[in-house]
């Protein structure tokens, strides 16, 4: 799975996000660092913010195409 595909999934889940950044940490297409800044996170606890990202990437997480996922999220407020 390439970073662009992960980015598309995140952009679909967080339309209008202030920023979506995806880094393939090892170049192997399965260890990713994702950073999302979105109003969708405003008022949510950190764990609920991460749950939203996990939900957006549920399919590649479930089928093992993402082996490792590091998440950083921020609201806009």
């Amino acid at each position: 799975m390439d970073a662009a595909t992960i980015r598309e999934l995140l952009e679909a889940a967080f339309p209008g996000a202030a920023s979506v950044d995806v880094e393939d940490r090892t170049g192997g297409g399965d260890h990713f660092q994702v950073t999302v800044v979105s109003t969708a996170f405003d008022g949510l606890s950190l764990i609920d913010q991460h749950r939203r990202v996990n939900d957006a990437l549920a399919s590649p997480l479930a089928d093992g195409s993402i082996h490792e996922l590091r998440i950083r999220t921020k609201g806009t407020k």
Partner: protein
Amino acid sequence: MKTLNEQISDVIEQEPVAVFMKGTPQMIMCGNSHRALQALHAAGAPITAVDILPDPRIRQELSSISGWPTIPQVFVRGELIGGADITEELASSGELQQKLDDALGADRAQDVKVVALQLA
């Protein structure tokens, strides 16, 4: 014998701080499990570790209970705190220590132990 699901639920509910990880604190098999443990140590947490690697069903049952897809998973008094990223973030902001102080008291023990689940 209790089912795997019951055993996992027991650990989550009964242990002050439960960490489901790859490997054990003595032999950590994954960088993210390492990060979570480091953050917990830094915040002065007791740790009850469960190695999820012996059987893939452990991870499946755990994720069905927690609704969290990745490993590690950290629980304080039965509440899912998060994975390595959140645990690190809360440790560096001081919130993790505060949460532990509130849940377990400031003069808590900081023992590290490992629970092995019984596989049918």
